């Protein structure tokens, strides 16, 4: 369902490509992408989201071989398959919460689905915030809204980029619980990209989360973070 083989990406002007060790996510598992800044994590996320073209290798995401999709098809695939909760939430300040939730349908050229928006807002316990503007929300509320937006089109893959950034410990755990609950409820695969020790620690106890570690610029021999009972895949060749 999610995996890659011989995957590499070379940025224009860079002297060497980022190579990713071959990987296949076992069925029924979620994925934790772990790696420090510059390890190639953002590049892998962009490749998974179809925002960067696959230059070499094979990348299969939710049954689609992304290398074979053209730009239009990639856009349509992304809209229909992927839900993203970015590190900066990018809720539109010009719109209310309800209108922000209408954006996925609008992006796909479809009509808004207020019933689905209401359902998600209720499930995430923020139904009363529908008419508010993003600047009127707390950080936690804004993250729930961003999660609701990501789930609007019933994605099969939910991608959360550094979901614990700027959150305290309590909110970090709460956000992780929200993401895992949402993934379970919606029946989608969750991919969390993080280098936050708290996230790694919190997910270590779960056996339904596989881990892919991008070493990147981490010095050789750096102490590995505890892996608990996870399946851990090391991308030894990873470099930025």
């Amino acid at each position, binding site marked *: 369902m999610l995996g890659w083989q011989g995957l590499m990406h070379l940025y224009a002007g860079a002297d060497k490509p980022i190579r990713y060790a071959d990987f296949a996510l076992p069925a029924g598992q979620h994925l934790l992408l772990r790696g420090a*800044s510059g390890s190639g994590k*953002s*590049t892998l*996320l*962009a490749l998974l*989201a179809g*925002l*960067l073209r696959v230059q070499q290798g094979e990348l299969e995401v939710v049954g689609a071989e992304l290398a074979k999709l053209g*730009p*239009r098809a990639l*856009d*349509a*695939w*992304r*809209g*229909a398959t*992927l839900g*993203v909760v*970015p*590190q*900066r939430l*990018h809720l*539109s*300040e*010009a*719109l209310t919460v309800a*209108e922000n939730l209408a*954006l*996925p349908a*609008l*992006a*796909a*050229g479809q009509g808004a689905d207020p019933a689905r928006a209401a359902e998600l807002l209720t499930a995430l316990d923020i139904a009363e915030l529908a008419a508010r503007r993003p600047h009127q929300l707390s950080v936690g509320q804004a993250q729930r809204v961003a999660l609701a*937006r990501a789930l609007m*089109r019933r994605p099969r893959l939910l991608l959360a*980029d*550094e979901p614990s*950034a700027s959150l305290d410990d309590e909110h970090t755990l709460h956000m992780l619980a929200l993401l895992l609950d949402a993934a379970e409820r919606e029946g989608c695969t969750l991919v969390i990209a993080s280098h936050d020790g708290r996230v790694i620690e919190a997910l270590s106890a779960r056996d339904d989360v596989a881990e892919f570690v991008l070493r990147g610029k981490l010095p050789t021999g750096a102490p590995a973070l505890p892996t608990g009972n996870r399946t851990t895949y090391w991308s030894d060749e990873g470099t930025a």
Partner: protein
Amino acid sequence: MIRLAWRYLWSSPLTTALNLLLLTLGLAAVTFVLRASAQVEAGLKRDLAGIDLVVGAKGSPMQIMLAGVFHLDAPTGNIPLATLDLLKAQPLVAQAVPLSLGDSFRGYRIAGTTPDYMDLYGAKISLGAVWAKPMQAVLGAEVARTSGLKVGDHFAGSHGLASGGGAHDEHQFEVVGVLAESGSVLDRLVLTDLASVWEVHEDHHTAHDEDEPKEITLALVRYRSPLAAAMLPRWVNAQDGLQSAAPALETARLMRLVGAGTEVLRGFGVVLLAAAGLSVWVALLHAVRARQGDLAMLRMLGAPAHRVATLITLEALLLAGLATVLGLAAGHGLVAGLERLLAERQSLRLGPLGFSDAEWLVPLLAAGLALLAAAWPAWRAYRLDVTTLLQAPR
């Protein structure tokens, strides 16, 4: 999509309001120039009413034309009544209508003439009838409306073409008819028999003047053939004391004079529009930069690049659409104000209100400007690097 563009547009209300104001002012200036020129030209053409030549006393042809056709200036003097017969005898002349001016009623000119004058304009009597004898008058529609005079009422003219001259109280005109509103110069004239003017002014003449030949002020001539345009004016000007004025030529000259002012106003409108276009361009560029995250998110949510670019273009087009409506309304308002001002001064009546053909340029101009201003920002939005969305905040 349109709703989203509208919301984005008004997410910076001050910037949008300023751009809207600039665009509206520019479009209003252009609308005013187009509309006013068209209406002035229509007004002038309507008053020309097929008059090919005005013959008056020696003087400025422009003055003769303004006095004889538009009734806006004082005539250059009088000419002998015999001139009329002389003109009628010319084979190139189809019709020659006399006009005798000199008095007014509440600022409206009293014109001594023949019923042929009304026929020139295709004027219809709405109440009463045409005069049958001297000292009977037919009122133009505006004169009747503002004076409140009805058929059967009497009034006295005052000396001179402007209000405030000495009254001819002893010579009372009887209103025998009222003209239907035609929008032409006839609306603001009091028409009477040629002999009425002579009768009113008999008192001003001394005894020995009574033997002097009768005079008229002007003769309005229609040509029998286009050949007359080349020959008749020359023949008239060669006559002692006569001056011809070709209204078509003089009107064109007048429009050229007015045109200088029009050009300045049009230039002003273009400068305003250029400033507005630049301002919209800067605002959109800023919006694309400020909303980079929003736009990238749309792309992330599956919007094709062209849809994001369309969103930016729509913002500009919505602004242009709004400015077009406001600009056209403001432009028409200004023309209506000008028309009221001219009416109050009993000056030229503008052509009928409504859309002129040239006015369709206004929305096209606005849309063109919006597309031009939005082109580069939309291209930036189209080329947006969505991967920045997945990068850590700086």
